[in-house]
């Protein structure tokens, strides 16, 4: 049998031990990295979206340089892929996919959700995007053009959704609370 076909949990344990013995990754380093990764969540992206809805200067920064906009919200971006932000308008809706693997704006949204990594999502997003969105009950009006952004290379992409009607006068915390993970990938709209 090919050694790579070893049961995955045994392979992980053996690799983890070897990396620790060789001084490449200690158990403490791994635990620390897990804690850092667990700390990233869609709440971070939601804060950026809410701020962009309230502050035109921040919105402009976010659209021109997503990495700087994330850093301005205290999100660590150093050494991570550049972040691009796609602006939804009354005429255009964006949907993000990675057909080749599962590139995801992890720095601002955390771990990719299960569906984003699935073969069905990756296959359908580029070929039948409107049918795919129906899985979430999301209907893009006929008057709206859809732009499907395939993260094939070095950028990571998030969507800046449209601010829902009936949110006038809301503060940043209240706005951020209605922005969900899927809204920033384009499978859903923020619920006003």
């Amino acid at each position, binding site marked *: 049998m090919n050694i790579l076909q070893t049961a995955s949990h045994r392979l992980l344990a053996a690799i983890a031990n070897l990396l620790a013995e060789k001084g490449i990754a200690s158990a403490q380093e791994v635990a620390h990295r897990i804690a850092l990764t667990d700390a990233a969540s869609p709440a971070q992206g939601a804060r950026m979206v809410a701020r962009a809805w309230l502050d035109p200067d921040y919105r402009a920064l976010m659209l021109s340089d997503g990495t700087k906009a994330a850093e301005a919200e205290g999100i660590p971006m150093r050494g991570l892929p*550049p972040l*691009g932000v796609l602006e939804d308008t009354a005429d255009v809706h964006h949907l993000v996919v990675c*057909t*080749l693997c599962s590139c995801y704006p992890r720095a601002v949204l955390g771990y990719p959700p299960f569906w984003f990594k699935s073969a069905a999502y990756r296959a359908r997003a*580029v*070929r*039948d*995007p*409107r049918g795919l969105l129906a899985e979430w009950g999301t209907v893009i009006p*006929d008057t709206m*053009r*859809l*732009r*499907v*952004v*395939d*993260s*094939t*290379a*070095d*950028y990571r992409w998030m969507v800046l959704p449209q601010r829902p009607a009936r949110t006038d006068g809301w503060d940043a915390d209240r706005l951020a609370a209605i922005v969900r993970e899927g809204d920033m990938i384009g499978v859903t709209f923020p619920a006003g």
Partner: protein
Amino acid sequence: MLSPGTHVRVRFDWPETRGPCHIRTPHFIRGAEGVVERHLGRFPNAEDLAFARPAALLDLYHVRFDQPAIWGEGRAGDALVIELAETWLEPT
């Protein structure tokens, strides 16, 4: 460098048939014609990075394609936008 609005064709090439490789240009877009939206920067060639080889910096572009034209189905006006390296693009 290609300026926004330049019409390009993705090379119709299948390096996979010639031996081990790692290609970041999706199968479905090879041979398709699109329009450069913008230059995204210069990044090391992933086809070399994947094998831990020295990697030259390549211009990376956001290229827009008419979505129904790719599949022969879909809604007119819908688009695919894909990150593609200069080595895969030829002006038309």
